[in-house]
């Protein structure tokens, strides 16, 4: 393995609106190495990645490409130098075809003109090697987060990248897809590329990386070789304290005292072309985990229940059939949903944290229709702190928070609504270990207080650790239901991938 640095960041500094969020970080991406960057939410991982990819211009320090100092003017130039970044929040063009999305900005030319045939054939080749469900002529609009990330990966591969930066690319992926991804990463590494790999899934980090940089509050707290360390140490470095609770994956769930009649039940839900015959129950005090491969239709089931999409079927609350034609009605009935796509569906990015956190409850807080600012702010503050959210002021804009902290805002919004039934779609996607723990504990507490919880997750360990029962969806159908006791990683995966006859 060679060791000449392809990209180096020296004493990188970055400040937003006067607040320094990266404080003198050194990173060195070596050829033929996978370099993991881990750290809590808001530690500055994405920011560092963005600096190296020319998205942000550092307020201090310098970037060296191939050994010499370079002032990256922007993503264009970075790409030209073979540095590609797969963003934490996917960046696709809904109105363009998948092929165009992959080749945007560098379409294959014939003379000076775009060569569509070549573009589409090359795109299809790539997609098949990535094992994608969709084809080059499909429109990108409507693909899932994971599918969109796959497009970005493909796009990165089409620039003959020397340096590939992946920011939480695995967050929305299932183990199967992660495996496929790692295969490609392996190939790139063998070809002498340098790969930066930002992730919260320490398991994956240890599996793939040759070197781990740990960040905390914008500083680099250390660099380790996986061989010479273990998860515990990394976690300690990340959060700077011992976590008392063992990581959830090893923890037995609380036993549930099942109420005989379910709080929440759906019967043969169907939505043409998306899902059909979906029936299940959630009892108060129970966490039901909904597993499946990306694209299985889980999000769409959730959104349909919540009244965002039309569907057919019966929804029962406390035994009574209810009509839900809009989220508003759902909320009135005591439902709440944390959507998968935080940025698009969860937040008002340019608005203040306070207004974001209270959006769902603003009406009930203000009994008369006149705003009750004081109560709002105090309860917002209260909940944000309960979730250990890192923020400067309630008037800070939501878009200034890191991915994980943004998720906490969304959670806070719904906890304020004190729902009977809570639907969580990928609640810990892009959330760091510490925060993830908190979310898990929180979910357990809420269940313990008698809330009925449906939790969609692509993270197997999460599914196993949290679910009192585990449901598995495949291609729009419920294919398996297993109790906590029966559920094992193997069974779930088999059901999700359809290797066994459905056991539900």
């Amino acid at each position: 393995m060679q060791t000449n640095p392809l990209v180096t960041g020296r004493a990188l500094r970055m400040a937003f609106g006067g607040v320094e969020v990266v404080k003198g970080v050194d990173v060195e991406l070596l050829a033929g190495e996978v370099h993991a960057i881990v750290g809590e939410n808001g530690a500055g991982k994405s920011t560092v990645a963005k600096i190296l990819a020319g998205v942000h211009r550092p307020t201090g320090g310098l970037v060296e490409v191939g050994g010499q100092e370079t002032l990256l003017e922007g993503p264009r130039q970075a790409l030209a130098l073979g540095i590609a970044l797969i963003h934490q929040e996917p960046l696709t063009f809904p109105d363009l075809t998948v092929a165009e999305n992959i080749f945007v900005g560098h379409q294959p030319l014939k003379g000076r003109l775009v060569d569509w045939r070549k573009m589409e054939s090359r795109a299809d080749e790539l997609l098949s090697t990535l094992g994608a469900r969709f084809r080059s002529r499909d429109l990108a609009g409507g693909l899932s987060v994971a599918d969109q990330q796959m497009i970005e990966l493909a796009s990165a591969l089409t620039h003959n990248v020397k340096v590939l930066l992946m920011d939480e690319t695995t967050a929305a992926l299932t183990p199967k897809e992660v495996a496929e991804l790692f295969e490609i990463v392996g190939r790139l590494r063998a070809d002498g590329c340098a790969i930066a790999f930002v992730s919260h899934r320490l398991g994956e980090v240890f599996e793939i990386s040759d070197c781990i940089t740990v960040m905390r509050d914008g500083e680099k707290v250390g660099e380790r070789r996986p061989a010479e360390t273990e998860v515990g140490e990394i976690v300690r470095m990340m959060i700077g304290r011992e976590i008392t609770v063992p990581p959830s994956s090893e923890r037995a769930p609380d036993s549930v005292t099942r109420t005989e009649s379910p709080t929440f039940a759906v019967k043969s839900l169907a939505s043409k072309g998306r899902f059909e015959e979906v029936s299940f129950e959630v009892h108060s005090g129970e966490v039901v985990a909904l597993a499946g491969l990306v694209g299985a239709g889980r999000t769409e089931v959730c959104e349909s229940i919540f009244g965002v999409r039309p569907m057919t079927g019966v929804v029962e609350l406390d035994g009574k059939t209810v009509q839900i034609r809009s989220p508003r009605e759902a909320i009135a009935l005591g439902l709440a949903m944390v959507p998968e796509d935080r940025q698009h569906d969860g937040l008002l990015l340019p608005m203040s944290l306070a207004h974001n956190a209270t959006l769902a409850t603003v009406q009930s807080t203000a009994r008369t229709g006149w705003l009750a600012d004081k109560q709002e702010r105090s309860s917002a503050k209260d909940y944000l702190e309960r979730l250990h959210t890192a923020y400067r002021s309630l008037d800070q804009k939501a878009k200034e928070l890191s991915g994980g902290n943004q998720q906490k805002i969304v959670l806070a919004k719904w906890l304020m609504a004190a729902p009977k039934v809570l639907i969580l779609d990928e609640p810990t996607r892009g959330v760091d270990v510490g925060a993830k723990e908190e979310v898990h504990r929180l979910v357990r507490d809420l269940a313990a207080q008698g809330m009925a919880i449906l939790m969609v997750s692509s993270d197997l360990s999460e599914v196993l650790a949290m679910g009192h029962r585990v449901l598995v969806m495949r291609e729009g159908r419920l294919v398996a239901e297993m109790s906590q006791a029966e559920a094992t990683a193997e069974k779930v995966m088999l059901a999700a991938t359809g290797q066994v006859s459905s056991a539900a």
Partner: protein
Amino acid sequence: MILQRREAIPTILVVVAFIGGAIASPYFLDFRYLLDASSLYVETGLLALGMTLVIICGQIDLSVSSTLALVACIVAKLLAAGWSAGLATPFGLALGALLGLVNGLLVSKLRLPSFVVTLATMAAYRGLAQVMMGAQSVRIPASMSGIDSARLPGTPIPLPLSILILAAALTGLLLHRTVMGRWIYAVGTNERAALFSGVPTSRVTTTVFVVSGLLAGFAGLVLASRLGVARFDHARGMEVDAITAVVLGGASIYGGRGSVLGTMLALLLVAFLRIGMGLANVTAEFQLAAVGALLVISVIVTNVVERYSGGRGDP
């Protein structure tokens, strides 16, 4: 606090315009006249108030001036037909609201782009007025006309002006102090996220158009009373002045940003500017160019200020 910073620019400009006017013409510094002349902008102001809500909600309403004309015409006809003012006035307001409701439903329920919907109703509403009135215009009975010669009892403030101030206060309360107001900002910022949070997005969208229509209808009554006649072609192009005021006032045409105070300051600014230039016999073409330039410059300044004060510079 951010809001205040945003209104700083219009405020400064108003002062500048005032001083400029005083220098440009010896006839400018006459407060009674300023009050009277400003009251010519009351209709524009009422339209701008509605437009503020619509724009913050991420929409646009080009049909306001046509709504104004249609309401004025119909009310005039009713009065001519012997209706009492006490009956015709509320009817006019209701009619305005109804016309707004049509816009609102087309936009919120059928998900049609407001720009084109109101572009169409702009033609349709004025067309309707024309069909009803043909060429001739209808007189407003003395009892209802001459509103701008009336003054707020015991003050030199013309009645229309005080009406505008009242309307502004109410709109301000709605926008900045009520749940609906908060929802308007939310929908304008990210409709889908608002929907997910249980905001009745289409009701909110409909509401802003209804309010806009209502205020336009109100403006129609004021104009008819001021002119003493109503006619289908009155107030053509007033919607542009209204939009100009709203945006000068610091609202973002992309929604989610703006304030009533800002709009009112901008209106005052435009009024002073026009009055000043008019008194100095500046020709119409220069006035056109000046107001256009002002609009552009003020937005540039806002952007610059925001970029350096760490706020969001990106449009």
